[in-house]
């Protein structure tokens, strides 16, 4: 039987949703309350790591496979670069310019839609950090048996 006992499986199947939701909240409100892309991404990854610990690696891989996680990682990095490059539309010195707030003037302070490119960057970084931390744990757990295999020969 893969994974841990029934108690751990039941409780972690309830809790993983709350952890995931809390990670999303930390990312989306990163420009208003303490938090942001890095910490929210770590929380997102930890919900999947909890899934992996409780149910075994195969179950977690059915939910989020290695290919999908690495694609999410690349999408996050490209999104962050794209947000930075969009500032170049407003002049040569516009790399990482907060163009949505300063030029388009969308959003009001202390609202969810505010601060221009900062929430977009937070989402990109959260995607990237979450996917890559999950990838580290997945890769380290996936390739361990094969490394120790030659000793049996």
């Amino acid at each position, binding site marked *: 039987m893969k994974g841990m006992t029934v108690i751990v499986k039941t409780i972690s199947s309830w809790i993983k949703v709350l952890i995931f939701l809390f990670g999303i909240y930390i990312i989306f409100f990163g420009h208003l309350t303490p938090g942001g892309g890095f910490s929210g991404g770590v929380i997102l990854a930890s919900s999947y790591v909890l899934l992996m610990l409780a149910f075994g690696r195969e179950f977690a891989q059915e939910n989020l496979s290695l290919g999908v996680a690495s694609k999410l990682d690349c999408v996050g990095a490209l999104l962050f670069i794209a947000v930075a490059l969009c500032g170049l539309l407003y002049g040569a010195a516009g790399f990482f310019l*907060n163009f949505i707030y300063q030029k388009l003037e969308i959003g009001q302070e202390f609202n969810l839609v505010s601060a221009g490119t900062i929430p977009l960057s937070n989402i990109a970084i959260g995607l990237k950090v979450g996917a890559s931390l999950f990838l580290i744990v997945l890769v380290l757990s996936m*390739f361990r048996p094969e490394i120790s295999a030659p000793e*049996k020969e």
Partner: protein
Amino acid sequence: MTIFYVLLVFVIIAALVAVETKNLLSAVICIGAVGFGASLLFLFLRAPDIAITQIVVEVLGLVILIRATISRDKTFITGDREFFAVVVSVVIVFVILLAGVHVFQTLPDFGKPAFAVAAESDRLPAPASQKYIKDGLKDTGAANLVASVILDYRAYDTLGEATVLFTSIIGATVIMRRKSRKLLEEPEI
């Protein structure tokens, strides 16, 4: 500032020696000299946090590199130590100690970080933190000033951190995969 340029030349010479030398262990030691010289340079440039990070990374990296090279490249000291080598090493240690004492004297007093001291003292430039606190909401519209600093004022740093994370993931995946590709061709164990 002459000692700054002396240190700079020392770092450049050590880097050149590290590239050119044939002995693996002495190359590693030269890299260590480059790293510690760079940390002293950061102290001169009034970036104490980066200097501390540099020292920590350098010590860790040096230990790992020496551990990795010592098994591959056997280096033993044969014969007595030469008098000239002892004198040179003592002089170098003394110079580095002197430079360190000088650098720590130029640091701001304890409890007065360089970024928060007001412009009343002539030695330090006007602090950047007061500008962030005063104009952060007006410039970026973010209520969380930390987010406004790391994603608007200093977004280059965040780009660098994201790149480091991305590169480390690629490295981990490639190293792990190389071990297993040979075994993937075999049937399931």
